[in-house]
């Protein structure tokens, strides 16, 4: 019997503040406009992305290619609605772009593309790529004696991919303490529970044994995220893994822990009503 982490329980019960609700309105507004989108994977990710872009990353939206900027890669590219909401809100591109999500002339596709979206460091969508790219970025910082840090956001389903663990070994080999892997551990992948599809536990021990300094938190707790992410590297000489216990579809009761909301097409009137009740008018 797997013991449920207290962080996972906290993720289920914690409430969201107004900024988190606002960001959800942006995400769900994009889904409403496009008539499609990965809802659950974006809603589980919002606080992780929010704290990164609000409080942690050294970035300048007016100079998105600044060589000294911190790098962030959304390796679980299907969570892009959360990233787009933050990038738009922080001024990387106009908020109005969010309404064009997945449109034929939009810069915002169903997975984020480098060169199309200001602030996106790498094109992702195929899973299991981001951590290796992050290792390259972090190693480059070391070789160039630059102080930027690299953050890679991974899905729990994504880490089924063997390439993630190849990258983890590589990161540890090089002692990349300027690299942070953040795992969105919502415990529900496309088909169903991660425990059913391909069990990940003991997840923290896995990352630890691969040479990472591991932190576990409630991934919807903005304060906890700030505390942990402002203290990287957790251990000098080691890459950091932050296992963020989250809830798929967090903040929208019909979508919470519901695999049917992994990807959503046109929202029905009753679903739109439920969204208004949960996050406010949008």
């Amino acid at each position, binding site marked *: 019997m797997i013991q449920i982490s207290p962080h996972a329980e906290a993720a289920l019960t914690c409430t969201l503040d107004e900024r988190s609700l606002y960001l959800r309105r942006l995400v769900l507004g994009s889904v409403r406009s496009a008539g499609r989108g990965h809802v659950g994977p974006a809603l589980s990710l919002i606080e992780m992305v929010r704290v990164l872009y609000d409080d942690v990353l050294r970035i300048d939206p007016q100079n998105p290619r600044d060589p000294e900027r911190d790098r962030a890669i959304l390796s679980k590219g299907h969570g892009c609605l959360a990233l787009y909401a933050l990038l738009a809100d922080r001024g990387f591109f106009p908020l109005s772009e969010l309404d064009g999500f997945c449109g034929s002339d939009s810069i915002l596709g169903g997975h984020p593309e480098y*060169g199309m979206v200001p602030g996106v460091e790498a094109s992702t969508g195929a899973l299991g790529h981001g951590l290796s790219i992050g290792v390259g970025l972090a190693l480059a910082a070391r070789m160039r004696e630059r102080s930027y840090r690299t953050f890679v956001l991974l899905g729990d389903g994504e880490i089924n991919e063997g390439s993630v663990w190849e990258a983890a070994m590589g990161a540890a080999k090089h002692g990349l303490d300027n690299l942070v892997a953040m795992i969105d551990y919502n415990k529900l992948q496309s088909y169903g529970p991660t425990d059913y599809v391909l069990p990940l536990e003991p997840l923290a021990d896995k990352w630890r044994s691969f040479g990472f300094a591991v932190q576990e938190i409630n991934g919807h707790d903005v304060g906890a995220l700030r505390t942990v992410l402002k203290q990287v590297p957790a251990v000098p000489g080691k890459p950091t893994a932050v296992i963020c216990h989250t809830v798929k579809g967090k903040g929208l009761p019909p979508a919470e822990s519901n695999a049917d909301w992994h990807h959503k097409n046109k929202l029905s009137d009753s679903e739109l009503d439920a969204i208004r009740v949960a996050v406010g008018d949008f």
Partner: protein
Amino acid sequence: MRNTAMNMVHKLAARDERVLYIGSDPGAGTLRAMSKEFPKRHLIEGISEAHIIGMSAGLAMEGFVPYVNTIATFLTRRCYEQVAVDLCLHNLPVRLIANGGGLVYAPLGPTHQAIEDIAIMRALPNMTVICPCDADEAARMMDKTLDWTGPIYIRLGKGGDAIVSKAEHGFEIGKAILMRPPGDVLMVTTGIMLQRAIAAADLLAAQGIRAGILHMHTVKPLDTEALLQAIRGIKLLATLEEHVPSGGLGSAVAETLIDKLGSGLPAMLRLSLPDRFMHNYGSQDSLLKKHGLAPNAIATSIEHALAASRTSSPQLHST
């Protein structure tokens, strides 16, 4: 050819601090001199090709020019999605140095025989595909890779291949080399098929058949201009490749002719390996011979196809 290409990585590294060597688990001592001179730029990253390609992409995003090296099949089949997405989609200057292109690893069996690598690499947008014919050409080629935009797949032969390339021909990526002027026949080759083509052309000459040779070291981008120029007045175009018939040099040439000419195509003979995995071992030469790619068989196939082309309307022949 391999040692020359490796040594060129060292020379390029000495010239330009962006150059990195990234091996998976190469033979002991690979680029030892470079590892001593530039230890931070000589990286051995383990049998993890998918990761290595992604990591190389990250390094290239930051301005490095990684030369990634392992066995051809592992550098193509194993990590195809990483090559497609991380390298080609981002159009990054990563160079894939593939040891043992074609049947070099004949004794090691089908897992090590790169017989479809040209097809799958040239299918990718932004990818450049180069197959040098000998060590001298490999050296000239490597020199041109440093500042080429985008990823390059470099298909290396075994080493010890007869030197047939000439310094005066130089080397430009995407520029074919006319080794012999065309007569009734033009052979288009890539990689180490050039040596076989030269021997076949000599045999044909003894039969009174003049056969030209266009060495298409760069399969992508294909030198369309040189091809269209060289086929003028010929009666038979033969492509020679150490590769399955699908998607390789013969396909590239045929596609180009169809796209550029549409009609009035020359008779064409595509000489290649069969569309199946090899279940024989032996040597590169013995497998080439078994599949009709030794000089004698090439000359005979061309002779027959030329005779057939004289008695029928233009048509495509294939082995």
